[in-house]
């Protein structure tokens, strides 16, 4: 990858980006009193529950500000606003260290492979040039999709990658995928909590991540984030957003997206048009598919616990425990095709398809002037927040549909779906939690292999209509082989066995993890969908229909 992408010059531009963000936020904050009051309210609320000394000092400061605000002049409030925004913008802006980037993308994969699979290390050391090659992970992380087209588009505009989000490994894996495909690196917003994660923070700090503090809930902070992201896009920084907002707890492919940052795509495009230098923005949906997921156990437990649904930040999952990460990576690197990153067809910020040259296309494939979507009835390019919010909702529908079509089905998904169906048949009509309590159900191996095959064939039919993708290792494989692949993937990573082979059949040991892995297919109608709406809540006779 030629080192021409703007991110390679990030450090020299950093202060300018931060300054521009501060100017923008301050200039469009119409009512500083309201903005500061709102920030004070949320911050006092957050800090009151903390016992930490630093937080207590901060709390006192906010309380004092809150008391003084009404007596301050507008100029004083604006000054205070600027100081605050400067703090946030400075905090958000991250680092990008080209040396670390080079190290992680070129040497580290081989090194990690070597360290985790000690057998191969002596060989690698005898041929040190191998350490500089990405081939070592090339067959572990498989990249699919029209990357040639994306490389062309990267030269014609700003790429915004919007992948599915299942694991804290995602940004690292995605970074590798970009490098493997000759695509430029992308900057991204990562939860600030990840920067305190000893394992991940090194990567986060230096791979172009900016910090998102999810504890800060007030508008002013969100405004800082959006403005920073918008400034980056305008300056041509290819970006990465996880529009699911957080890792999918259930294991399913996201159906609902958070749109805040995605909306900056239109804003940056409109700003470039109005400045007389059109810079197009291309959204690239992608799926990151794992044979096994690092945090599967924590995520599904969190999904299932009512309290968990509100728990947005998990500080203590597998990704913060070195032994788990090592076990996971070791597992990953022993299996071919264990991770598949698949790029979908790019979209413009309005959700239209685009061609190789970056022209917007309508549903009939005609080229349409992209700027026409932001022209009002008088033909002028206009800024219209209401209009752009609707376009962004429609873009989100396009992304969700791309997720579904580009989901890469792994052996673990198919086997879990077949197993979970067996569990449900043990308790017909029972609710999810009853099914999850079924322990150690035994299914004859041949019968299970047959069910797996049936499901795979149904998926193959879906693949023919373009509604899903099968991983290479399951497309033309027998049911028994798919079952064996899944068992060997599960084995040795999860703390307790998911399914277990016994002489007289397969024992279904962990219904929760089976639910987690089968959920990946729930949007395709080929696995139980715990989130399917009750058929029609308004209709009392629905059950009988």
């Amino acid at each position: 990858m030629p080192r021409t992408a703007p991110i390679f010059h990030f450090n020299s531009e950093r202060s300018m980006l931060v300054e521009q963000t501060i100017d923008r936020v301050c200039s469009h904050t119409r009512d500083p009193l309201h903005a500061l009051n709102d920030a004070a309210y949320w911050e006092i609320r957050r800090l009151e529950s903390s016992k930490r000394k630093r937080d207590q000092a901060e709390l006192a400061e906010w309380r004092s500000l809150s008391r003084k605000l009404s007596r301050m002049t507008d100029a004083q409030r604006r000054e205070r606003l600027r100081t605050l925004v400067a703090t946030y913008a400075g905090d958000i802006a991250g680092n990008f260290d080209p040396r670390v980037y080079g190290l992680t993308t070129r040497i580290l994969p081989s090194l990690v492979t070597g360290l985790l699979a000690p057998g191969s290390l002596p060989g690698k050391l005898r041929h040190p040039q191998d350490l500089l090659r990405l081939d070592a992970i090339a067959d572990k992380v498989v990249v699919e999709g029209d990357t040639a087209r994306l490389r062309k588009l990267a030269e014609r505009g700003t790429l915004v990658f919007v992948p599915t989000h299942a694991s804290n490994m995602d940004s690292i894996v995605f970074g590798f995928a970009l490098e493997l495909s000759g695509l430029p690196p992308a900057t991204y917003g990562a939860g600030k909590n990840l920067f305190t994660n000893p394992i991940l923070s090194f990567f986060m700090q230096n791979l172009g991540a900016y910090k998102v503090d999810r504890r800060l809930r007030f508008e002013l902070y969100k405004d800082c984030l959006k403005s920073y992201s918008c400034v980056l896009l305008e300056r041509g920084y290819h970006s990465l957003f996880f529009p699911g907002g957080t890792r999918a707890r259930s294991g399913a492919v996201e159906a609902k997206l958070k749109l805040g940052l995605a909306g900056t795509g239109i804003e940056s495009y409109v700003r470039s048009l109005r400045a007389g230098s059109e810079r197009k923005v291309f959204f690239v949906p992608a799926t990151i598919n794992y044979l096994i997921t690092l945090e599967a156990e924590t995520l599904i437990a969190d999904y299932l616990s009512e309290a968990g649904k509100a728990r947005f930040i998990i500080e203590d999952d597998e990704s913060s425990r070195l032994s788990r990460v090592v076990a996971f990576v070791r597992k990953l690197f022993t299996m071919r095709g264990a991770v598949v990153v698949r790029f979908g067809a790019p979209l413009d910020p309005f959700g239209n398809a685009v061609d190789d040259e970056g022209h917007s296309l309508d549903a009939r494939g005609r080229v349409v002037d992209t700027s026409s979507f932001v022209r009002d009835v008088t033909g002028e390019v206009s800024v219209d927040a209401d209009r752009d919010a609707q376009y962004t909702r429609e873009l989100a529908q396009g992304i969700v549909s791309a997720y579904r079509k580009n989901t890469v089905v792994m052996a673990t998904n198919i086997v879990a779906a077949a197993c979970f169906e067996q569990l449900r048949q043990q308790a017909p009509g029972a609710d999810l939690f009853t099914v999850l309590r079924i322990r150690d159900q035994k299914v004859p191996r041949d019968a299970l292999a047959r069910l797996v095959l049936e499901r795979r064939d149904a998926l193959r039919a879906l693949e023919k209509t373009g509604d899903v993708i099968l991983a290479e290792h399951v497309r033309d494989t027998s049911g028994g082989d798919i079952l064996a692949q899944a068992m060997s993937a599960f084995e040795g990573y999860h703390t307790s066995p998911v399914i277990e082979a016994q002489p007289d059949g397969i024992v279904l040991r962990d219904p929760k993890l089976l639910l987690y892995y089968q959920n990946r297919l729930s949007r395709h109608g080929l696995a139980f969908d715990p989130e399917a709406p009750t058929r029609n809540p308004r209709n009392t006779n629905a059950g009988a229909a």
Partner: protein
Amino acid sequence: MKPPSVGVLGGGPWGLALARAATHGPCETWLHSRRQQDADVPGVRVTRELAELAQCRLILVAVPSNLARSVASELGHHLDGSHVVVHGIRGLSGPELTTVSQIFREETPARRLGALGGPVQADELAAGRPSAMVVASEFAEVAAAVRDALQSDRLQIQAIRDLRGLEWASALVGCLSIGIGYGQARGDVSAGLLAALISRAVDEAATIAVAAGADENTFYGLGGYGDLLASMALVDRPEVVLGRELANGVGLAEAREKARLRVEAVELVPRVVAFAKLNGVDCPIMNAIAAILDGSGDAAPITRALFRG
């Protein structure tokens, strides 16, 4: 600044009425019609070229529902993303019950789409009698453009966001109007019973449409109830005529002739029933209308439906 022009596509009574209404507004008005107009509409420029019509940024489409796709497909060649396209077409197309705005989404580059609905009648609009209509669009600027072009002291326009809901409401009101004509013509259906049936029918229609992603509130507003109430008084509404004729024992083919205009609801009712069944929605009134249409039922199932559950 010169106000943008408005183009009306369709030279039937509804299209002419919209064009007339637009002449009361500030915009230059164009009408695309393939028919030889008997009389020119004062203040309206008539064209036969879609390319010329596409000079207008706001386009109101008023063609019969069975022509929606072919018209959209042709129009699509002349539009770009800056056009605002609003249709006044009652109907849901094909077994998938595709809305007309979805057809325009599929066939044209226009994204800012909307629909007109509500109780307003073509003749009232054309004659400039006070009336009310609904415009629905997910884009606020679409509703604003329609209001700018059409709203006057004689035409009140209510704007809602629920485009899908309004399109479903308009189509289902067409279906239910057959039931109204039928009920009115039956000696054994009293005014009170008819009112009860209508209330129940609106609730049922809302439940069906919610399964299709609509907002139920749309059905209880001008685009649902409002539109249906107009059917009570409109003895010449084709759907009402058809229902009345069927109640009088006339066969479906003959009843359709008497209705004069094409009643799309005849084909729509069984498709709605199938959709409801697929989605687990109980719809006794729609079932009863389907039975009336295929000749297998009479008023009894409708009244029975009312007292079920």
